[in-house]
């Protein structure tokens, strides 16, 4: 992505500072609507998180939310970050293969990821390496199955409308 595509949504200097901060990590930068999108392999997650948070120009101190999207053949973990001082926003998207749903826990970088990861584990079955206390958060103990996944049938909620 060249930098002039960003002029209408994301400040160009912000885009340059992000490129400078993460130049070592193989990833592709995209532009989802008005946020800078970074797609990368899960091996570099912790590294890139640490870099983005500590660097003063990007200053991604606030992890807004961690969402898991179930694309049937694989899962996608979407980290929405934003900085409070410059009010810039970054989205990190990571594809996780269905057979090995494992990610590094980002708690060392953002304390606030604790419950997001536990909820993701409850609803989607994505495990996080290094998470201190992976007890079920939202579902009661002994609940089988992962309700968040597409494979989990919504009990007879079929409305008569649409496709």
């Amino acid at each position, binding site marked *: 992505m060249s930098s002039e595509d960003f002029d209408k949504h994301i400040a160009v200097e912000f885009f340059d500072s992000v490129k400078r901060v993460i130049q070592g990590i193989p990833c592709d930068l995209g532009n989802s609507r008005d946020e800078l999108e970074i797609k990368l392999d899960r091996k570099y997650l912790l590294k890139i998180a640490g870099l983005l948070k500590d660097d003063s120009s990007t200053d991604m101190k606030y992890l807004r939310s961690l969402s898991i999207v179930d694309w049937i053949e694989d899962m996608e973990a979407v980290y929405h970050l934003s900085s409070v001082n410059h009010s810039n926003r970054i989205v990190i998207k990571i594809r996780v293969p269905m057979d090995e749903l494992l990610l590094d826990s980002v708690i060392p970088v953002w*304390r606030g990821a604790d419950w997001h990861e536990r909820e993701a584990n409850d609803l989607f079955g994505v495990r996080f390496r290094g998470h201190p206390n992976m007890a079920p958060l939202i579902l009661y103990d002994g609940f089988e199955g992962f309700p968040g996944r597409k494979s989990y049938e*919504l009990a007879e909620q079929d*409305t008569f409308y649409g496709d």
Partner: protein
Amino acid sequence: METKAEVVKSANPDMAELRINMGPQHPATHGVFRMVLGLDGERIISVEPHIGYLHRGSEKLSEGENFQQITTLFDRLDYVSNFNNEWVYVRVVEKAMEIELPERAEYIRVILAELNRIASHFLFYGTYGLDTGAMNPSMVGFRERERIQEVFEAVSGARMMHNYFRVGGVKEDLPDGFVPAVGNLLDHLKRGYDDARDTLTESEIFIERTADIGKLSAEETLDYGVTGPILRAAGVDYDIRKADPYSIYPELDFQIPLGSHGDCYDRYMVRMLEIEQSIRIVEQAISRLPDGPIQSKVPRIMRPPEGDFYVHGENPRGDLGVYLVSKGGTVRPYRLKIRGPSFSNLMALSSMLENVYLADATVILGSLDIVLGEVDR
């Protein structure tokens, strides 16, 4: 470093920690929230929050409903500020389908959302008074909230579950006589705010109970992802209406109250000052309410294009975000993630409750002003 629990345990190994269950049936947990507190005498050593009692699977439900029906789901998330929830959902669909709103619809949304913020802060004021033991604030808070809900009922037909915002505008136009009604409602609110301020804000016992309690530094607050009045009480100037302005907020002039100590009293004060600011916003919006259509042309069966969209707004409790993933051409969203502010605000609770009195646990939990509908979704 050793937590307090280990220190106490190592001091007297055979002593069993007094574990009491605060919740899910408890007058001070603001909903179905359970804390297993390990006590040493009156001091709390260990905290184990349990949530999930109000988990209705809204995100999964929304995958089974089409775009018109999901507004009713969002009313029930943060059931104390319904308009703000509907607003964030409706904005995400408008962003997906690139729909422009008529001017009047924007003004109606700002007026109703800010009135809802006042009502939500008055509810906080009432319950927080009860948490510290005073009975009068609950009546003052609920009396003002009732007056606002009367206006909501006149506009949308329901006091809380309005289902009034639509993608591209609002369901119906305002009833006639709405502007004078809001005018004298604002006078009532000003007098009610004075009553509220005189009862609690300056009372010595209240200050004694809340000052320097549950302190959280700015970095720690941000690290937990805590937003809204709690973050602003810690001195961080982050309000989405100013940081990432949406709708017609840039045209309105209002201030963002900030605290300095980041303790319970500052959180209380920030919310009270926000009531004042919201009254100012509604006054300006009412005076500039334009005429014109209230709904832009939207197909009755909405099929947003492919892609993923994230929109967030300043809910009275913090940064409410909705992440919509749509496969294009389908009537139902492929994935709808709801980022509730109370979910992250509650995470900071266990670190605040270390080595604190049992009575303070109620005060600190009250100062977070959580709503369990938004925590468990």
